[in-house]
């Protein structure tokens, strides 16, 4: 159990992001929560591919020894770029919503009262 502390840290990061998305009422803060979840998922992928006492899978000036797995790191690269794309699209939609409704509070969106 003590060896799983990195996984517990990753899950704590994902839970913090989920709580931000669920409980905050500001759209900008919800976008920040989604970004925190993405960071947690990236960290999870990196943590999955690590081997004990391993170096990065790059042969240039490598100190030798076993190498950590390259496929999760490549998937993390994909995930980071997709995160940037999704973040840009979310922020532009938030700007569009702010122009239309003149507010960022999600309780006041939609025009009707609960």
């Amino acid at each position, binding site marked *: 159990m003590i060896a799983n502390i990195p996984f517990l840290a990753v899950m704590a990061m994902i839970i913090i992001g989920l709580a931000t998305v669920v409980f905050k009422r500001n759209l900008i803060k919800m976008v920040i929560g989604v970004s925190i979840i993405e960071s947690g998922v990236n960290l999870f992928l990196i943590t999955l591919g690590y081997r004990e006492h391993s170096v*990065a899978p*790059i*042969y*240039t*000036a*490598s100190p030798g020894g076993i190498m950590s797995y390259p496929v999760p790191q490549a998937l993390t*690269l994909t995930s*980071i*770029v997709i995160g*940037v794309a999704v973040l*840009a699209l979310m*922020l*532009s939609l938030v*700007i569009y919503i702010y*122009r239309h409704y003149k507010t960022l509070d999600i309780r006041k969106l939609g025009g009707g009262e609960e």
Partner: protein
Amino acid sequence: MMSKIVKTIAGISFPFITIYGLYVIAHGHLTPGGGFQGGAIVASGLILLLVAYGTDWIIEKIKESHLSILESLGALGFIGVAFLGLIFGGMFFTNFIAGTSMLFGGIPTSTAANINTGGTLPLMNFAVGLKVIAGLFAIVLVMAYAISKEEGE
């Protein structure tokens, strides 16, 4: 529009940031980095210019339609290299240059770095780097231009 100090420092540091990003792109198959990372570095240098000099100064120099053309060129180059693999190697994304005597065709020794290796990887790195530079800068440029125009009204 920022103060004169910010403009001067941005103008001085922009060439260094660009050269470093192009180095990361060109050495993507040897050292940590690649097309995406180097493209992000160059795009952040361009965004530094955008923040320092203001949107109107940038929009006179380059339009977002030009950036869209550049991004499409990057994507077409990437897919084109992949289709060359289909023609010469038999499969999509085949690394048909590695192991031959063409440019970038060498095989590296165990730990020594050699820029003339990698097969199709450097070509794809350049294409993806062009695509990421144009794409990220187009996103920030369009958002900054829309917001500055709204504040000006």
